[in-house]
């Protein structure tokens, strides 16, 4: 199997850059809230120093806001760390449900910008496949990108994962405008290379308003 960068070229770097920019934006937003909460606590302590009474509720509200943002940043940084380590090994046996969860989390800002909600309830049982983690993330992101543009009623996309004979299928549904978006996105060189490298296949069912991605196990080269 070709290495990550041979398959993706500059597009791989672009994917990495897009995700990193989105992550940094999320971190900045959380930091901005912590900054304002800390500033307000400082304002309140200056008042207290002057003998002006400070309501305990205002203090509690700000400390709880800081704790909430610390938890949020911890989640963002955990995802960033998983994403960064996905290029460590060109091939590994992984749980596809965890990769879908990661890509969904990393894409949350892009979804919010489009007013789309992406819902994924990972099944309790793992779905293992031997594949390239970084290329799989890239392919899932491209599918999600197409799905976000074709999102249907209420703009909620459900992600479903199911086992197949040779691997795992990821379904994106409902996509009311999927018929209008087929073709161009999937004939791109990048998509073709990814599908070939991952032994994957994309199917579009216009009747069901659904896009599905079937991932096979990549043979281990000895």
């Amino acid at each position, binding site marked *: 199997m070709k290495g990550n960068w041979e398959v993706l070229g500059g597009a791989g770097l672009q994917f990495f850059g897009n995700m990193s920019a989105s992550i940094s934006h*999320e971190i900045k937003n959380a930091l*901005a*809230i912590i900054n304002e909460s800390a500033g307000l606590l400082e304002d309140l302590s200056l008042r207290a120093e002057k003998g002006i009474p400070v309501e305990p509720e205002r203090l509690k509200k700000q400390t709880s806001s800081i704790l909430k943002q610390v938890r949020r940043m911890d989640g963002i940084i955990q995802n960033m760390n998983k994403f960064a380590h996905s290029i460590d090994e060109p091939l590994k046996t992984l749980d596809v449900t965890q990769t879908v969860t990661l890509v969904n989390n990393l894409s949350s800002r892009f979804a919010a*910008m489009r007013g789309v909600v992406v819902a994924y309830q990972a099944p309790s049982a793992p779905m293992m496949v031997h594949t390239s983690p970084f290329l799989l993330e890239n392919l899932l992101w491209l599918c999600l990108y197409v799905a976000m543009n074709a999102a249907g009623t209420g703009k909620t996309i459900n992600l479903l994962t199911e086992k197949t004979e040779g691997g795992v299928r990821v379904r994106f549904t409902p996509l009311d405008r999927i018929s209008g978006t087929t073709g161009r996105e999937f004939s791109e060189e990048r998509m073709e290379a990814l599908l070939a490298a991952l032994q994957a296949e994309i199917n579009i069912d216009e009747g069901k308003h659904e896009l599905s991605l079937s991932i096979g196990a990549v043979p281990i080269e000895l």
Partner: protein
Amino acid sequence: MTEKVLLVDDEADFLDTLSERMRDRGMDVSTTTSAEDALKKLDAESYDAIVLDLMMPEMDGLELLKAIKKKKPELQVILLTGYATVGKGIEAMKLGAVDFLEKPADLKVLTEKIKEAQANKMVIVEKQMEEKMKNIIRVKGW
């Protein structure tokens, strides 16, 4: 003179705390998490400055900036964002933003920018009034 400010950002917690601090400093602050609602508020109220995030759901900050300047060209818009790039900053200034600040921002700096924006707006409004008066005098032939 009290500065009347509209804060537009999709982070509700950020709006809550920043507006509380600004009100404590004597400003008259309104907030909204939606670009559409911001445009409605502009129809109903007059503001000295609008503090706007660049990344907003459905209509991003630059689109909203264009819509604001089209509706009320005299309005002073300050962009406050966690998504700052030189390119976006230049684009925002070309579209008529008076300043571009990066999150997390220092409230002292933001307050100064708002005061400057209020002064700019007063100059623009005074000029507009002067033009109107001149026009009336010309038309009426006094």
